[in-house]
């Protein structure tokens, strides 16, 4: 089975977000970049599926060369090879076009990615790729098993979980607990340096959406403390001051 895993290169979840250049760019000073956490679940499950039944795992990233350490980490975790589309990820549709273009040149059975990127939280790319390829797309997927040409999966829905069955090929947006994250071992880290990483040019159109300006939320006012011995006062404040009860 040939699996394509699409990864994002995003600030670590503990990053304090600030902007620069008159609020048009993220201030990257001191920011640690990581594989998107949801993408890492997708990658881990892809490697498990390959290890169980053979095939290959290719990672794909749309972005500039600064992401290469993140791509190498995906190779160290266990992907076989990588493709980087050398372009700024302008918006969800632009990224989906790149993925669909790569997918049309290769015969993948499965395209996995995170349910959303943790920077822009759009959650759009998997559905767009499915629509562009004419493949079913399912998200957020919490469990994924492949039996021959059929996938069975559990998807989170509001109020519970839905179990679905569908024939491959398939696009899935993944989240925990689909797999355990894998920590790269020394052999993986050494071999990642020599695994193939192809750099290709982008295709497609102008972005349908552009960011005019970034903003930070207003600072939170100070916290009003209530004595633990006088909890009734808290209820009074919530009812009469905050007006939320």
């Amino acid at each position, binding site marked *: 089975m040939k699996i394509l895993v699409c990864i994002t290169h995003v600030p670590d979840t503990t990053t304090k977000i600030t902007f620069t250049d008159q609020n048009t760019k993220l201030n990257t000073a001191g920011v640690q970049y990581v594989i998107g956490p949801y993408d890492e679940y997708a990658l881990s499950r892809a490697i498990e599926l390959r290890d169980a039944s053979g095939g290959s795992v290719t990672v794909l990233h749309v972005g500039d060369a600064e992401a290469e350490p993140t791509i190498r980490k995906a190779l160290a975790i266990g992907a076989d090879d990588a493709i980087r589309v050398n372009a700024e990820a302008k918006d969800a549709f632009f990224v989906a076009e790149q993925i669909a273009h790569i997918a049309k040149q290769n015969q993948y059975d499965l395209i996995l990615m995170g349910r959303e990127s943790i920077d822009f*939280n*759009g*959650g759009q790319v998997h*559905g767009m790729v499915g629509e562009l390829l004419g493949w079913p797309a399912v998200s957020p997927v919490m469990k994924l098993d492949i039996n021959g040409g059929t996938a069975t999966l559990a998807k989170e829905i509001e*109020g*519970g979980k839905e179990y679905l069955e569908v024939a491959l090929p398939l696009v899935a947006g993944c989240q925990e607990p689909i797999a355990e994250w894998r920590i790269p071992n020394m052999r993986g880290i050494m071999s990642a340096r020599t695994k193939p990483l192809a750099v290709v040019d982008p295709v497609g159109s102008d972005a*349908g959406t552009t960011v005019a300006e970034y903003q*930070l939320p207003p600072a939170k006012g100070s916290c009003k403390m209530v004595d633990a011995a006088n909890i009734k006062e*808290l209820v009074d404040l919530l009812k009469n001051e905050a007006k939320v*009860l």
Partner: protein
Amino acid sequence: MSVLIYAEGFEGKIKKSSLEALAYGAALASKLNTSAIALATGTFQASELSALGKYGASKVLHVSDQRMDETPVAAIASAIAAAANAGAAQVVIMPKSALTDSASSKVAVKLKAGVVNNVVELPDLTSGFKVKRAIYTGKAFAVTEINTPIKVLLLRKNAMNAIANGNDCPVEAFQPSFEATDFGLKRLKVEKAEGEILLPEAEIVVSGGRGLKGPENWHLIESLAKALHAGTGCSKPVSDMDWRPHHEHVGQTGVKVSPNLYIAVGISGAIQHLAGVNSSKVIVVINKDPEAPFFKAADYGVVGDAFDVLPQLTEAVKALN
């Protein structure tokens, strides 16, 4: 020309977040000098749909095909795109949910529309079409310009007040043509989560962390939640230790909530947890450690032991009712 609003339902009722999306769509339609049309899919009582007029819909298109009750994402996307085409919609609005995250991306491709998720305000139409959305899981906002003729917006929960002040509106049957692949996924079964209140839809959320010491103490959280008609959540360590199911995990990689009131008990307030709750209107933190970082993000704080404070708080809330 029109503004189309997808009114998502849950078990035969239109969701509160859909009413917020309708209020948003109606306000936008009046800015654009056009009408707001709602679309509902699946089985509803007629009165449930005609009541959408009260929130600003001029009419409701209803796809009553029973297959829609299983919420097939591709078929719902086809229905939304067909309704948008039929009404020459300039803007399509959906309440943000697990369903619309997936459906909107298909609609956007079908309509060649730019799509923006987690919208928090009405758009600025003074030059072009600019709309503010939450990014970095609520740690920041991006004012985003949409350059395509048709726009798709997903509205974050609690970003708009839904107030019923109009009259009922007509309901029309709508029968889009589906593609064979629209029903290509076979539903094997559904597991329902416990509890009556959907966490992402709850107006009040009570969450517990490691300070509760173990799953056997969760009745303290549940009693307070019951008194407040609240949903229950938990921190990531709590769901990782299987004290509580994963769908209750609130935070950056879990459920993001934006209720009117968020009460955090025995949660220290790691930045990843705050990311999932920082768009709550009012935050109350109860923690025995006065240095817990969560107090910096809170509106009201109580330094105290969860085992003392929770029963007292539950009683005080009950006394109020």
